[in-house]
């Protein structure tokens, strides 16, 4: 039984697009990072790269797994939620999906 893992990313959830009540801005997504509950803790993750990993039926470049890469841009509110921008906007069916917040670019 493995006593160690090889997870080199923090888990996060896509909460939705940046939005007001009736208008949304799909170029920015809100991400809830596990274990982060206030703005100060979220500072650690600013600039870190995010990967939205998903599967598709058609193989592309030898793999059925696809990624949309993005970065954490700034905190959102005071409870640790974070704004992020991706190379292409996250599709709405990704709301509630998991996202990998990598540990690079690292500053430790």
């Amino acid at each position, binding site marked *: 039984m493995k006593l*160690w893992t090889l*997870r080199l990313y923090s888990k996060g959830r896509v909460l939705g697009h940046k939005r007001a009540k009736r208008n949304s801005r799909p170029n920015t997504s809100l991400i809830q990072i596990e274990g*982060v509950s206030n703005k100060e*803790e979220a500072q650690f993750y600013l600039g870190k790269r995010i990967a939205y990993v998903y599967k598709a039926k058609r193989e592309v470049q030898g793999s059925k797994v696809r990624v949309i890469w993005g970065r954490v841009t700034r905190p959102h509110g005071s409870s640790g939620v974070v704004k992020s921008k991706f190379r292409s906007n996250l599709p709405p069916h990704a709301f509630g999906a998991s996202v990998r917040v990598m540990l*690079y670019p*690292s500053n430790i």
Partner: protein
Amino acid sequence: MPTRGLPPSAISEATMQLNKPHFDPNPVLCIISGIGLDDLKNKVFAKRGLYKGQKKTQKPAAEAPAERAASPPKPSGLRSSITPGTVVILLAGRFRGKRVVFLKQLESGLLLVTGPYKVNGVPLRRVNQAYVIATSTKIDISGVKVDEKVNDAYFAKSSSSAGKSAELEFFEDGKPKAKEAFPESKAADQKEVDKAVIEAIKKTEYLAKYLKASWGLSKGQFPHQLVF
């Protein structure tokens, strides 16, 4: 001179204004003193010497850029937490999660790192600072001499692989690529550097096992709360 509608006294005053030694081309002042804006334009034209033609911005002569000596590329800063001998965790790439020893920073700014190879399979390798977490574990590698020949050029990809024509590559696709044997000289360099590093590692108990083990996050561990 189109100073119409003005009494003669005003006209002469206006001309005097234009011909004063210090001519203030302020449109408001000119209007007040009765100078028509056409007169203003003409005067400004004369003042700026525009009859000589609009001055085009001078393009620097061909020699000028060369004269401005290109400042030598500055070595990129090194985080204070990374010092020679620091054990460092690789975050991405083939050896992600491996704990590895930092040797020195190369000219390009990349970090030179070694497993050592016998310990965890990581060879002499270059790594970018941003893809590395520095731990507080330090090894004393003052006795380690990294040869000057191990620099950025040492790691350059061989040009022979680029020489293949597209046709040959197309036909070869699907067949297992012939792997080039790892050059003996590089293996020797690796052994030489690692010998001294491994000696330093053996001084601390469990350090070899520590370097052999990989690092990863487990449940309940959050990087912003960890101390490395």
